[in-house]
């Protein structure tokens, strides 16, 4: 998909350093940040917060058939990662030995290219994660 420059720019804090939010009322962390706390709604008080940079794999899959823009990268790993503050994030797992990509494996934040805009050639960057010992 062609993504506009303003959209990429707007997402930089989220995609470059995992900026999310947490609710001062209920203490729950959200990634990406939200406008409304779904638990507290109007009683909620959301503050911006960078997410922890480490967590563990909650579920994962090895993708063999990729969508438009990713087919040349297959196979690659997609995982749901539970961060140290319990917020979950979906991300690719990279630079890791395949047998170490398991549910429960500890991972940490990395920063990588995530494809290229097909029309104007803008290169998208974002978070990915890698398994640590």
């Amino acid at each position: 998909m062609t993504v506009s420059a303003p959209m990429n720019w707007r997402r930089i804090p989220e995609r470059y350093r995992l900026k999310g939010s947490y609710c001062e009322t209920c203490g729950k962390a959200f990634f990406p940040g939200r406008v409304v706390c779904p638990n507290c709604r109007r009683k909620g008080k959301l503050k911006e917060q960078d997410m922890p940079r480490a967590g563990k794999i909650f579920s994962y899959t090895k993708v063999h058939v990729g969508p438009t823009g990713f087919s040349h990268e297959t196979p690659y790993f997609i995982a749901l990662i539970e961060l140290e503050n319990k917020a979950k994030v979906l991300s690719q797992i990279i630079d890791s030995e395949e047998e170490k990509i398991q549910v429960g494996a500890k991972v940490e934040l990395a920063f990588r290219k995530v494809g290229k805009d097909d029309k104007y050639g803008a290169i998208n960057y974002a978070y990915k994660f890698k398994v640590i010992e």
Partner: protein
Amino acid sequence: MIEVVVVGAGMTKFGENWESSFRQMIADAAIKALVDSGLAGEKIEAIYGGCMASGRFIGQEHIGALIADQLGLNPIPSTRCEAACASGGVALRSGYLAVKSGEHDIVAVGGVEKMTDVSTEDASFALGGAGDQETELFHGATFPSLYALLARRHMIEYGTTEEQMAMVAVKNHKNAANNPNAQFQSEVTLEEVMNSGYVAEPIKVLDCSPVTDGAAAVILCSKEKAEALGMKYIEMAASEQASDTISLAARKSLTELRATMEAARKAYKKAGITQEDVDFAEVHDCFTIAEILAIEDLGFFKKGEGGIATEKGLTALNGKIPINPSGGLKGKGHPVGATGVAQAVEAFNQLMGRAEKRQVKNAEIGLTHNVGGSGATAIVSIFKKAGVKK
């Protein structure tokens, strides 16, 4: 209290309908449903049409108006309903509510998708729009990969196996082989499914529903009007809808679809039945794991026992609770916007006793279950054979 009934149903053959366009298919299905009901087109007061992604598949939006136009039914109101793969279910429920409210006596509900005019890669991209574009698709997640994340947790938490998932495909292909409108007219073996190659581990090619063209339609009417006109009918006892987070990352659990559970709870209550009373169900098996989740979330089996129930044959056509007698999305095909309506077509055919080789014996109560995306929308509807008291 106004009661809603279904008085006619029709669908195109599902498959790679290269000879047929979007507008031809929806017109064909609607005409079949109308002829089946015995009603003339001018009796229809409103149209609700389910369609997920015609903009991406054929470059056409404004589907409501297009359908009314193609059917020659101007100037009645015609509305498109969109909820990804649950678009048809939402159209069905919208039609149900329109009659239930007393605003309309007779409405047409349709669903349609033309998916094979684009490449498979573009079709996957269009379907990806059912997930969270910013936090899922952007990172290279595909729809099979999202369901693979669900499947992995089910395997870890409950010991569900890849073989059990494959058995869902085997069963649904077997049912589809008895459905002349199904995309797949042949059975598959367990070995064929297991050897079909991974799309997103543990999901294999034959765990996935196919890319399909097709349309389906039903005519809904108030019971009073149907009886006054002497029409055949089945009762529509409930149609409930629920929502959940659009991204998987925000879910509390990955081994249940809460929208399904909530819609089911409300639907059983409204229909005055329990899951024990359901004689068959058409569930949303976009992937085989989705059927396992569905039969648990709908209450037919305990959480975690959907895989073993499938293995024991409890969901087969002659089992304890036949699931997807039509072949389901897996065997019948999954033209996304049409699916929720096609499920109602099957419920109609089963409860009218005209499902031929795939007829569920003594079927009196049927349930349909339609899911959007990875579970962010679910619609559960309940149908009863005319005169069934329960």
